[in-house]
């Protein structure tokens, strides 16, 4: 294979600055890298238990804190989904479950999973842990602000969970919180519930802004010598673009949450039209409910990509490492991430085809939606082409990656269905939609999270997770998740509406009863299977096989720290210098099948490395 490419390749990798440095006539030093622009960052080292592990300024500890808290809320979301499935599969089996409870569980499950679990886990958890390590920084640029960010998140989760215990319970208006019903009597939790939800979201946005500024400035302004943007692992690119989206999309959520709080507390009518209730005109009047939907989805659609883009990035790295091949079309992958991110601000109203918005909008948004499918599809092709003829290691991480590709393609294709107005209108508010978004932004990113946990656990803990348990975990989750969501497409086609507490005896839905029972059973099993991972983590922390340095033989910087797990400050005395991209796997002519990013060109003169 290598002979075919010999002609077109330069033999040596060079720093981009080398050429300009060689004007003097002396042979240019191929290992030359520009000196540091900034002096080394001073860090505050904690000494007590509190400053080391609780109010800690080390991004790695903050990342683990984010991870644990997000997982905790995620488990609450999981339990809520169990209760919902119990009701749907076996109506009346849970005696306490009323329709109000069901709506509250739907709402809280959605909000927790999207915002407090996936967003916090990807950006707060993986972002904090990996950004400084992968870009070769000592820490985030503003460690104190970073710490405050986590504790704001902590308070936000506290406020959110507090709404379970206030009179009326948490809000039951669906995770989209559409007014007017969200704050009108008759909707469960329309009192304190919705107020606490809005307050919690505002706190989350404020906290996230602090973290997000850190991630962005660390990536843009604090990279190590030789680390250009086009030598960053795709993980960092994914998290970076997602953070940009978050910084620009969360304002819309903040504004809508604030205005809704005012509508509730001060009886303003931002979103509240004139309402006739039981023959009586309410005090509200003149507001526009559809404005809330626009604001919400101006946040909500980028939010989908806030979850998806880090997953794209991480899975690219995992696939490359575990198939021992460079990522196919690295630059295309980067540009695809950036283009998807940019386009995501122009597609929001495809969530609103049936909302009664301006009828011409459907055309605009269907077009942009289909355009955004193009870079997404490119990414899928590139993952598959990375696997093509690779030296694939069929370990747990790789299994999760393959699971991701399958579920993502499945969810993506149904997305193209729903992006077209004429197809969407009959499918709106059916289980087809539920199946679509759970496939594409529930299961698929979750597969990546699982793969990432198995991949980076050795770095965080210094010990390997059990492969055997991991494979059980994967197969139960993968097959189970398919058993849950695949039949839901069918339910959607026969017209089963989403968000219904019970179908009662609707004649056309009786054929769905058996299927609902099947789905629910699968959901219980899949949910329970997640505790295999928790057991695996707990046991492996103490008894796992010691990982040693760089157990996966990866190239990126996080595996090249002087100590594993890395200490505060990451790099010991000297910052690493980067000479290449992180994907030099199976390079023809190289001694080993990987060339770490810190290997200087003079050591690999005889090989055919990519010029990056």
């Amino acid at each position: 294979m290598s002979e075919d490419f010999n002609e077109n390749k330069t033999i040596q990798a060079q720093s981009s600055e080398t050429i300009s440095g060689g004007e003097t006539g002396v042979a240019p030093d191929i290992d030359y890298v520009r000196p540091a622009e900034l002096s080394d960052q001073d860090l505050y080292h904690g000494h007590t238990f509190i400053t080391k592990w609780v109010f800690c300024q080390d991004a790695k500890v903050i990342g683990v804190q984010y991870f644990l808290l997000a997982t905790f809320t995620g488990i609450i979301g999981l339990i809520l989904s169990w209760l919902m499935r119990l009701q749907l599969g076996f109506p009346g089996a849970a005696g306490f479950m009323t329709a109000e409870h069901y709506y509250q569980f739907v709402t809280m499950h959605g909000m927790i999973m999207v915002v407090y679990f996936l967003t916090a886990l990807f950006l707060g958890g993986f972002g904090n842990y990996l950004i400084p390590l992968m870009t070769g920084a000592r820490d985030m640029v503003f460690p104190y602000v970073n710490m405050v960010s986590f504790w704001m998140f902590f308070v936000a989760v506290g406020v959110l969970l507090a709404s379970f215990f206030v009179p009326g319970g948490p809000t039951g208006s669906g995770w989209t919180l559409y007014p007017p019903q969200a704050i009108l009597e008759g909707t469960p939790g329309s009192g304190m519930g919705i107020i606490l939800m809005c307050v919690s979201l505002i706190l989350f946005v404020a906290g996230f802004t602090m973290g997000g500024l850190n991630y962005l400035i660390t990536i843009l302004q604090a990279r190590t010598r030789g680390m250009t943007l086009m030598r960053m692992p795709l993980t960092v690119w994914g998290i970076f673009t997602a953070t940009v989206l978050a910084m620009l999309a969360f304002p819309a959520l903040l504004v809508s949450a604030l205005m809704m709080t005012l509508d509730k507390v001060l009886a303003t009518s931002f979103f509240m039209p004139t309402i006739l209730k039981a023959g009586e005109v309410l005090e509200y009047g003149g507001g526009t409910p559809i404005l809330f939907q626009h604001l919400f989805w101006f946040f909500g659609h980028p939010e989908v990509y806030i979850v998806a883009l880090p997953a794209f990035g991480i899975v690219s790295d995992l696939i490359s490492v575990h198939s021992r091949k460079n990522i196919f079309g690295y630059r295309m992958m980067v540009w695809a991430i950036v283009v998807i991110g940019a386009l995501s601000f122009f597609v929001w109203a495809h969530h609103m085809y049936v909302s009664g918005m301006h009828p011409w909008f459907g055309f605009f948004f269907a077009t942009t939606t289909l355009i955004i499918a193009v870079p997404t599809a490119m990414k899928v092709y590139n993952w598959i082409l990375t696997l093509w003829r690779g030296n694939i290691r069929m370990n747990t991480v790789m299994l999760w990656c393959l699971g991701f590709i399958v579920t993502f393609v499945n969810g993506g294709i149904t997305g193209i269905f729903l992006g077209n107005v004429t197809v969407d209108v009959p499918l709106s508010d059916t289980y087809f939609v539920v199946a679509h978004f759970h496939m594409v932004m529930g299961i698929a990113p979750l597969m990546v999270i699982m793969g990432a946990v198995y991949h980076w656990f050795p770095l965080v803990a210094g010990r390997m997770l059990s492969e055997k348990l991991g494979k059980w975990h994967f197969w139960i989750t993968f097959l189970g998740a398919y058993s849950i969501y695949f039949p839901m497409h069918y339910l959607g086609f026969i017209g089963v509406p989403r968000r219904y507490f019970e179908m009662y005896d609707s004649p056309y839905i009786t054929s769905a009863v058996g299927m609902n029972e099947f789905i629910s059973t699968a959901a219980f099993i899949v949910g329970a299977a997640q505790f295999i991972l928790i057991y695996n983590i707990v046991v492996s922390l103490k008894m796992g096989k010691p990982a040693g340095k760089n157990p996966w033989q990866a190239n990126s910087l996080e595996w090249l720290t002087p100590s594993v797990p890395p200490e505060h400050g990451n790099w010991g005395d000297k910052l690493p210098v980067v000479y290449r991209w992180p994907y030099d796997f199976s390079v023809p002519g190289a001694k080993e099948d990987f060339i770490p990013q810190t290997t200087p060109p003079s050591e690999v003169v005889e090989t055919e490395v990519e010029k990056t």
Partner: protein
Amino acid sequence: MDEIKKEQTTTHKIGIYLWIWGLLFVLSFFSYMVDWYQFQGLLRWSLILFFMFLKAGLIMAFFMHLYWERYALVNVLLWPMTAIACFVGLMVAEGKYTLFSRLFYFFVGGG
């Protein structure tokens, strides 16, 4: 730490600040005059927008030093505004449509 290795930071002559300062006062005065003389319709709106963007541009370019910044920073800051422009444009249409449907169904009686 984050000190840039450089010698003396160069600053700009005081005249430029005073000029911009003066211009801002004059432009604010003009936009106030738009209201004073009660211009109406398209003339009013275009004048308001013209003075507004001019003032905003001057503040950003000179007081916030964007004019002297490198393009890498300037472009990062200005391109996201296209999303806002799109949002504004669509909401203009949406606002008109909502008003139309309200008048049509509530007052004209389209039912």
